[in-house]
C-alpha cells in the first residue's frame, strides 16, 4: 500500500470519527445553559486551534533537525505540516467569529485564542510564501527551517502577549483553554473531537508528504512555484 493510500485511509477513518463526534456533540451532549447551543462550536474550535499551534511547533522542530541532519524528508514533513496547519487555522478563524457573534455580539473579538490563531495564520502565510519564492531546493529548505524555528519560538510569546493583553470580555470560565472544567459528558465529546482532529492531521500530512515525494520524482527539483 503506497504512502498516498495509507494517508487516504487514515483521512477516511478520521472523517468517520469526526462524523461520530458531530453526532455525539449535536445530539447526545447537553446544551450549555449559559451560552446555549452555540457553545457546541467549542468542540470544533478548540481542537482545531490546538492543532494549528501544534502543527507550527512540529514545523519548527523539523526545521531544527533539518539544519543539523540536512535530511530532505524533514523539510518535506515541515512543508506538509505548515499546509495542514494553515487549513486548521482557517477553521479556527471561521468558527471563531461564528461563535463570537451570538455570545459577545461582535463577529471579531480580540479573544486570546482567536488573536493568537490569527498571528499563526500570518506566520503560515509568510512561511508558505518563502517556500514559494525560493527555487533552489536546498536553499528553500534551509530558509524554511530558519523561519519555522523562529515561528515555533514565537508561539509562547504570542501566548504571553495575548493573554497579558486585556481581551474584550472577561474570559468565560467555560473556555479556560488549559483543562476545560466541563461536566464529564462534554469533556468526553471534546476529547473525541481532539482525537478526530489528531487523526485528520496525521492523514492530511501523510498525503501531503506523499504528494511532494511524487512531485520530486517527476519534477526533479523539489516542488514550489517553479
Amino acid at each position, binding site marked *: 500500500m503506497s504512502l498516498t493510500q495509507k494517508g487516504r485511509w487514515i483521512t477516511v477513518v478520521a472523517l468517520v470519527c469526526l462524523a461520530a463526534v458531530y453526532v455525539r456533540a449535536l445530539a447526545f451532549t447537553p446544551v450549555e445553559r449559559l451560552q446555549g447551543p452555540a457553545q457546541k462550536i467549542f468542540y470544533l474550535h478548540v481542537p482545531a486551534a490546538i492543532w494549528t499551534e501544534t502543527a507550527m511547533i512540529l514545523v519548527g522542530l523539523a526545521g531544527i533537525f533539518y539544519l543539523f541532519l540536512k535530511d530532505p524528508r524533514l523539510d518535506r514533513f515541515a512543508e506538509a505540516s505548515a499546509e495542514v496547519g494553515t487549513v486548521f487555522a482557517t477553521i479556527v478563524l471561521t468558527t471563531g467569529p461564528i461563535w463570537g457573534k451570538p455570545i459577545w455580539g461582535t463577529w471579531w473579538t480580540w479573544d486570546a485564542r482567536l488573536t493568537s490563531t490569527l498571528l499563526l495564520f500570518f506566520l503560515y502565510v509568510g512561511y508558505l510564501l518563502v517556500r514559494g519564492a525560493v527555487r533552489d*531546493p536546498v536553499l528553500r529548505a534551509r530558509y524554511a527551517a530558519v523561519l519555522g524555528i523562529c515561528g515555533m519560538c514565537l508561539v509562547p510569546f504570542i501566548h504571553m502577549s495575548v493573554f497579558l493583553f486585556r481581551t474584550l470580555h472577561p474570559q468565560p470560565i467555560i473556555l479556560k483553554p488549559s483543562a476545560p472544567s466541563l461536566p464529564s459528558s462534554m469533556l468526553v465529546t471534546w476529547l473525541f473531537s481532539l482525537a478526530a482532529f489528531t487523526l485528520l492531521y496525521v492523514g492530511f500530512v501523510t498525503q501531503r508528504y506523499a504528494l511532494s515525494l511524487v512531485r520530486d520524482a517527476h519534477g*526533479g527539483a*523539489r516542488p514550489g512555484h517553479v
Partner: protein
Amino acid sequence: MLSAEGLRHAFGEGRGQVVALDGVSFNLTAGQTLAVFGPNGAGKTTLLKVLAGLIRPQQGSVRVAGGRRAIGWIGHQSHLYEHLTVRENLLFWAALYGVPAARRGPRADQVLERLGMGDRADQPVWSLSRGLAQRAAIAKAVIHDPRVLLLDEQFTGLDLAAAAELRALLGELRGGGAPGAGRVVVLATHNVDEGVELATDVAFQRRGRFVHFAPRAGRGSSDIAEAYRRAVGGTGTDG
C-alpha cells in the same frame, strides 16, 4: 599549502541534479600556480568557491594552511563599496582579515604603489574606470598578503593589452621564484591562452572531474590547447 581531498558537490536533486564536483583531489605547495581549464558549466567556479570556503562541499574536504585568513579571492564581484574611497575600502578589508591596526595604513599604501594606483587612493571607487576598478579589486584581494590566491575567470572581457597587464600583475604578485617561497595560485578560465604562461601546473575539468592534471613542463598555449582538445574535445575557447 592548499590541498583538496575527494571533493564532491551537486546542485538540486533527482533528475534535475547538476554534478559540479565529482571527486576532485590535488595538493599544491608554495610557488605552484594551477590553471584550471574547462568549458562553462564544468564546475570551475564551484571548485574555486569550495576552495575559498564559500560553499561547504557535500563530500570531501579542503585544507588551507592558515585557514580563511590566508585566502585571497578574486571573483566576478569587486567587494568594494563605491561610496568609500579606495583606501577606506582597503582599510576596512584589512581590519576584517585581522591586519593589525598600525600596519593597515602602510600595507594599503604599499599594495596600491605596487599596483600603480598610489595617486588614486583617496578617490571614491565609483569614480574609477573599469580597469582601475579591477586593479582596486585585486589590491583588496591581496591586502592581507594571502598565502593562497584564487582567481575566477579574471580574463573574460579584457582586451589584449589589459589581459597582458593583468598577467604581468599576477606574475609579480605571485612572488616566489625560488621553490617554497611565494603564494599558491589557482586560476580558472575557459580560455587556454590566457592563463598558460603563469601556470606551473595545468588541469582540465569536465563535468566536475579533472580529466587531466600535470605540470605544464614548458608547454606553450598551443600544446596545451592540443592536449585540451584530446582530453575534453572542442577548443578551449568554446562556451
